[in-house]
């Protein structure tokens, strides 16, 4: 199947099998390995990207479903050599340890603030409930998101 989508500002087209998952298309066909695969069952959020600006778990979407859409991955968040404020905030607030959950966590956090620019701590925790972290205990992640909101 021929598909075409805008990924991180660049139009990409490819001929793929309909059953190709979006996360595999991004990682294997486009080489965008910043998006991780954790659970592969839509539970952990490691594979979170944006489709048309909204967070989505790319292990639970077919690449063909993104045909004609706009996709942003962690690689597309920085612009002009400047990190996205959310990335900076994760760095400054130690919002990561091993870093495995981080790309998905950052993408989910950016989507969260797009929808709710001034969340309470509770709203941040609820908003990130689909993203699991095995290292940080979440404390500094929540701190980073709240700091980025300011």
């Amino acid at each position, binding site marked *: 199947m021929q598909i075409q989508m805008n990924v991180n500002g660049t139009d990409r087209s490819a001929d793929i*099998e309909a059953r*190709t998952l979006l996360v595999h298309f991004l990682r294997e066909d486009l080489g965008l390995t910043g998006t991780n695969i954790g659970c592969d069952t839509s539970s952990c959020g490691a594979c979170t990207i944006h489709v048309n600006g909204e967070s989505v778990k790319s292990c*639970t979407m077919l690449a063909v479903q993104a045909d004609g859409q706009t996709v942003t991955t962690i690689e597309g968040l920085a612009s002009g050599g400047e990190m996205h404020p959310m990335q900076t905030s994760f760095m400054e607030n130690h919002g990561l340890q091993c870093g495995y959950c981080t790309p998905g966590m950052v993408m989910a956090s950016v*989507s969260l603030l797009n929808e709710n620019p001034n969340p309470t701590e509770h709203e941040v925790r609820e908003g990130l409930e689909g993203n699991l972290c095995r290292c940080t205990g979440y404390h500094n992640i929540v701190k980073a998101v709240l700091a980025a909101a300011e």
Partner: protein
Amino acid sequence: MIPSSFDYVAVDSADAAIGALTEHGDEAKLMAGGHSLIPLMKFRLANPTVVIDIGRVNDLSYIRDAGDHVAIGALTRHMAVETSDLLKADVPLLAHCASQVGDPSVRHRGTIGGSLAHADAASDLPAALLALGGSVMVKGPNGEREVKADDLFVGFLENSLADDEMITEVRVPKATGAGWSYQKFNRRAQDWAIVGVAAVLNGSAGVSLVNMASTPLRAAGVEEALASGASHADAAQRAADGGSPPEDLNGDAEYRTHLAKVLVQRALTEAESRKS
């Protein structure tokens, strides 16, 4: 995990979807958000040979005031239902139940039509539709018909639609000022309900149960008891009437039966306190 191979057809209207369903028969499956179907296909529990993608039928994504009810297009995402001011004001139970589905990323993709069609006894929106006395509009090659929530869920993950029909719209009666409550009991964030109870007190009572049988279930015993004047506490004792609770790692049937009684009582108390 990757699904087995299938032919993929993207359609841009309900009529095109029905045309494709008619052509491919029971080999085909509609895909809306894919958030129930793709996991099943990855586990190879569903192996459709044709997938008909209705995810971009944008004119079936709307929330409209239709006088005595609110009309919601089948392709409306959970996030849109959750954040709709119209629904928050006139059908708050539905907006709240939508906010309880999975996590925000799931709610960006999953649709109300997909959730109702999937007919999962453990899911949140079927319970809301039952308690509210809502219905769905179902379209097929010979036109459209209305199916009441009570007639929609017929078996384990089974709805009453024919192979060549699809849900186009969901209709929920306005319940402005009614008492309502949704009690979703689970042990982890973003999880499904171990047991759930939806209640609407609007003159008469609508009460329904999540995960207490193989289908989403009306709590007929509770409604009957309330209609004949029983107290909330007495009515709650009949929570599991007609149920056949599933048994799994989260709890056996006895535990779920107990939970249903406790949650019905809590739901009625909260709904009563919200009446205006």
